């Protein structure tokens, strides 16, 4: 295509609103502007003056999709500041809550947002009941999402903005009988998730990004909630992660971009698999076999495959915890307010979530910095669209196909615009 001006004002089947402007002149890609179109809600300013005990439930409202990830990360930052060491039971229940989120959230992305592309449909709502594969995956979608949803409800009291997790522990403990029901449901969806892995292995596209860096928080059990920051060139303490993130102003986007150690990078399921596949649950590894040889991969579409694999890992890990957990009565630990600064880092479904907070002697927030995965991936998304265009210029004669390809690249990153647009960058001295 010689010349082209293309504006995608509202990309569908993603969380929130984003757009893209493209300008091609004389066969050269002159401009690619990927922009997050959600208006800011200024949480960075709104949290100032709030009590540390109230913070997690407030910042959970940054994003309905991954609200429980914000909840857990905020709690971790608060506990790090106050020096609170919670019980092993609390840590395991938090893992269960998060596994429920990973299952539900990845399933929403893969089945509801991505799968219609594989079957030539606009929406999973258009899938035909009398078509074998469409019927199967439509029903698999609801079964897998339900299992994750029910696990989050059983542990947290609700799958969105869970009310039970607090700084210091849980206000209410889950009922073992409810967890056993969840266990049966998790076992029931396992084979469906292996089918999903195989589908993505067989059908997904290829867009290779040479020299793309990766970063992920990993521990030996791939828990999403603890460990060290692994990256393409080594590893470092999670407390140092923010020091190596460079803020990049993107004037046409409502959200800020970031580079890590001076380079464009990717965070999320593909980064986790590339840097830590050997840490997956052993039962998952046995079932996946040679499929895992694909990783490390520079194909950004393998983020979808990696998410499907992480659903399997979350099922196996959650099942292990439920089978071995004997819930005993315990109260949440008391909060003793004191001045301090601290960091909380976890892996949200879409990648590294970073909270840095400072509080005064009465426990009120003085300032905070919250860096979300989609902000970190924003520059990479734009560059991936550019790479695709430069590699496929001669094929770009059909605007409709071009629009679909760009949307599918954005979707492969599974961006979350609600998260990305919550804040205004402030300097943190």
């Amino acid at each position, binding site marked *: 295509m010689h010349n082209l001006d293309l504006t995608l004002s509202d990309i*569908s089947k993603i969380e929130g609103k984003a757009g893209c402007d493209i300008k091609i002149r004389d066969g050269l890609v002159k401009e690619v502007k990927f922009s997050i179109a959600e208006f800011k*809600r*200024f949480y960075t300013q709104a949290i100032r003056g709030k009590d540390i005990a109230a913070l997690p439930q407030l910042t959970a409202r940054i994003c309905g999709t991954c*609200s429980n990830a914000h909840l857990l990360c905020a709690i971790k930052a608060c506990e790090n500041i106050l020096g609170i060491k919670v019980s092993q039971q609390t840590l395991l229940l938090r893992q269960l809550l998060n596994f429920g989120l990973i299952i539900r959230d990845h399933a929403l992305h893969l089945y509801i947002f991505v799968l219609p592309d594989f079957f030539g449909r*606009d*929406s999973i709502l258009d899938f035909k009941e009398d078509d074998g594969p469409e019927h199967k995956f439509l029903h698999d979608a609801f079964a897998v999402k339900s299992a994750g949803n029910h696990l989050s409800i059983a542990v947290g009291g609700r799958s969105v903005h869970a009310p039970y997790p607090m700084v210091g522990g849980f206000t209410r403990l889950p009922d073992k009988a409810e967890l056993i029901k969840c266990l049966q449901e998790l076992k029931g969806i396992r084979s469906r998730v292996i089918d999903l892995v195989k589908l993505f292995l067989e059908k997904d596209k290829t867009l290779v990004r040479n020299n793309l860096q990766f970063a992920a928080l990993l521990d030996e059990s791939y828990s999403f909630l603890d460990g060290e920051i692994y990256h393409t060139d080594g590893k470092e303490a999670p407390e140092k992660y923010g020091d190596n993130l460079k803020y990049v102003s993107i004037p046409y986007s409502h959200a800020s971009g970031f580079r890590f150690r001076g380079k464009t990078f990717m965070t999320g399921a593909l980064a986790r698999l590339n840097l830590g596949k050997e840490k997956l649950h052993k039962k998952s590894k046995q079932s996946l076999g040679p499929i895992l040889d694909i990783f490390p991969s520079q194909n950004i579409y393998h983020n979808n495959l990696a998410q499907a694999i992480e659903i399997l890992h979350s099922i196996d890990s959650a099942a292990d915890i439920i089978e071995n957990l004997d819930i005993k009565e315990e109260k949440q630990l008391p909060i003793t307010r004191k001045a301090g600064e601290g960091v909380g880092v976890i892996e949200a479904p879409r990648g590294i979530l970073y909270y840095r907070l400072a509080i005064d002697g009465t426990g009120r927030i003085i300032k905070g910095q919250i860096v979300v995965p989609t902000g970190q991936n924003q520059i990479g998304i734009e560059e991936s669209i550019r790479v695709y265009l430069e590699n496929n210029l001669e094929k770009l004669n059909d605007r409709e196909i071009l629009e679909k390809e760009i949307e599918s690249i954005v979707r492969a990153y599974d961006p979350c615009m609600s998260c990305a647009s919550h804040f*205004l960058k402030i300097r943190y001295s």
Partner: protein
Amino acid sequence: MNKRLKLGWFSFSCCEDSTIIFTELLNDHYLTWKKLIDFRSISVLQKKEDLTDLDVAFVEGAITSGGQSDRLKVIRENSKKLVAVGSCACVGMPSAQRNLFNTETNTEIEAILTRFKYLPKVQKLSEIVTVDDQVPGCPMNEKIFLTLVDKYLKEFKIIS
């Protein structure tokens, strides 16, 4: 195909928690709803959009820009009923937190407000259009939502 309820689902400034609850309600209700509801617009699930002559528009989120306000008015003009869904749509908060900022904080965010043409104040839906019903909660209360869906299915004579 039998007559179906022409439904739209729209999101403005919020965390979209009610959208997530809605997608989870589909797990249990989709097979029933697909026979009764024509999803005309719901961008989290589909690209196609048809705003004409909607029976019911469910709207989540608060209004923070002139563009959002204009679009809400268009949705209102095209919908027989409009329902505010979730806390931000019903009462503005927590998306309206900036309405309470002090002068110093307002100065800090002023450049952003100007560059992207924010409204001076974040508004709940009923400050801009007539709202027929509300589903309160953060996220929305599922039972109230399901009761309302049932009410409109009867009111528009989709079911008896």
